[in-house]
């Protein structure tokens, strides 16, 4: 259910602009890896290269290798649509489908990929909602619109939607930045639970959050505006937050810059 990601020599471009340069790292299965760093350092861009969402933007392209266990996501015959089924994603702002009910939102990934059978869908929807810690709050109104939920509930709905398609990896792009502290706590608890099933990568601006939820932390930085983002270091979270190898990491974590 969970796979290791090995990135080597990855560059990502927006048109002619190099956004991130030469990134190599290994992301362990059944663990949480946090990406931290100042705004514009390419954390989100890098995250989006891990499920080929980067190239959805016109003019954007990627060079390098991303191995999911042994399969290269950027291999010549690889279908990006299949990649995205394997590597799920949760976005910064909750984005449930406005025309769909809570049930349909969770079932969307399956239905739109041609899974049929009411009882099977019912089971998967319930399981995904339970895994997303949302079942108890919504099981009596599954036919109500997903957009009617609170922000925190909507985000958990989006997580349920992402895990309903049974991905191997779950990417989260600042999933709590639009949420209040209570909802944030609910999502963090959820991440702790989900890492038993999935490989989780989370981008966050909140260093306490990275320290709380992640097993490993990667620090990204840019040399200046217009320069490409780079991976400065990646290590166990406890180590990054106590005695990082690089001075820049320590400066960032202690708030001396960024």
């Amino acid at each position, binding site marked *: 259910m969970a796979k290791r990601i090995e990135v080597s020599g990855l560059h990502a471009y927006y048109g002619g602009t190099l956004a991130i340069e030469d990134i190599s790292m290994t992301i362990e299965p059944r663990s949480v890896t946090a990406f931290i760093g100042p705004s514009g350092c390419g954390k989100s861009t890098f995250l989006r290269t891990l499920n080929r*969402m980067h190239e959805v933007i016109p003019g954007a392209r990627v060079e390098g290798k991303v191995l999911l266990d042994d399969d290269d996501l950027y291999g010549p015959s690889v279908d990006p*649509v299949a990649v995205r089924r394997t590597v799920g994603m949760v976005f910064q702002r909750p984005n449930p489908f406005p025309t769909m009910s809570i049930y349909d939102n969770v079932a*969307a990934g399956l239905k739109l990929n041609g899974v049929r059978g009411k009882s099977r869908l019912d089971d998967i929807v319930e399981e995904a909602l339970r895994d997303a810690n949302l079942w108890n709050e919504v099981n009596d109104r599954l036919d109500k*619109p997903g957009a009617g939920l609170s922000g925190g509930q909507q985000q958990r709905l989006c997580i349920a939607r992402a895990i309903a398609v049974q991905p191997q990896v779950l990417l989260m792009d600042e999933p709590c930045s639009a949420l209040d502290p209570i909802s944030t706590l609910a999502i963090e608890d959820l991440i702790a639970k989900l890492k038993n099933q999935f490989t989780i990568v989370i981008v966050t601006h909140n260093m306490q959050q990275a320290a709380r939820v992640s097993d490993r932390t990667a620090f990204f930085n840019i040399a200046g505006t217009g320069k490409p983002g780079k991976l400065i270091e990646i290590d166990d979270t406890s180590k990054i937050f106590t005695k990082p190898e690089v001075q820049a990491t320590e400066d960032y974590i202690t708030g001396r810059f960024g």
Partner: protein
Amino acid sequence: MTSAFGSVSPARRIKDRAAAVFMWGAFALAVIPLVSVLWTVVAHGVGRLDGDFFGHSMNGVAGRDPGGGAYHAIIGTLEQVLITSAIAVPIAVLTAVYLVEYGGRGRLARTISFFVDVMTGIPSIVAGLFILALWLLTFGFEYSGFAGSLALTILMIPTVVRATEEMLKLVPHELREASFALGVPRWRTICFVVLPTAFTGILTGVMLAVARVMGETAPLLLTIFFTKAINNDPFSGPQGSLPTFIWDQASDPNQNAINRAWTGALVLIGIIMLLNLAARFVARRFRPAGR
């Protein structure tokens, strides 16, 4: 009783009033012609709003005769507009989907966009002349409701393309990304996420276009020709239509004919209003659910 924030200064109060008066005045000015047209049409048209009008054609009825009806014209208009919509809406919606979802800023998309703009500017009689020249004179088909539909299609496509384009652009990019991230291919994302989200707006655009082509007279005169008799088959022979019926009756000096023209106009307005109400009802059921 002066608070720490003072009160709104007299000058601002006067400006606010003046702006409000100006706004309501402009609104009234815009509504007066509308109400006046409606009132005149109802007042003149209600007299002949009887069973005969809906049940009979003009076959064997001369201009000075009382009685007679617009059954042939109502059937013609409904059939022609239905065929027009059936052809124009799919083409227009697919064109807009291409322009917004696939074309980007490419050469083909820009070319299509340019020609849609050109089509928007075509005078309706030119659309009629085009079909007359191509369909009737070159290909040798006879006058028919369908020929009229083809002319109306030319007028309907660009309006629906533009309206649909605007609505598709309003669909947040995040929704498309959410769908892509679930491993849903682009075409399914468009069919099941983008189009349903934009459905209400697209429907409104289609209704406006329908209302517009339903009142077109010039292109029909050249393509459906003219008949007083009932012709239920839109694919063969001259057919009636409400605009041409109104045009014909209004140009007859007899009062009975003029009365029929007014009632024809009233019925045309009524049909468009009913269609709009129906569209609103449908739109309400498909509206993106909010809080």
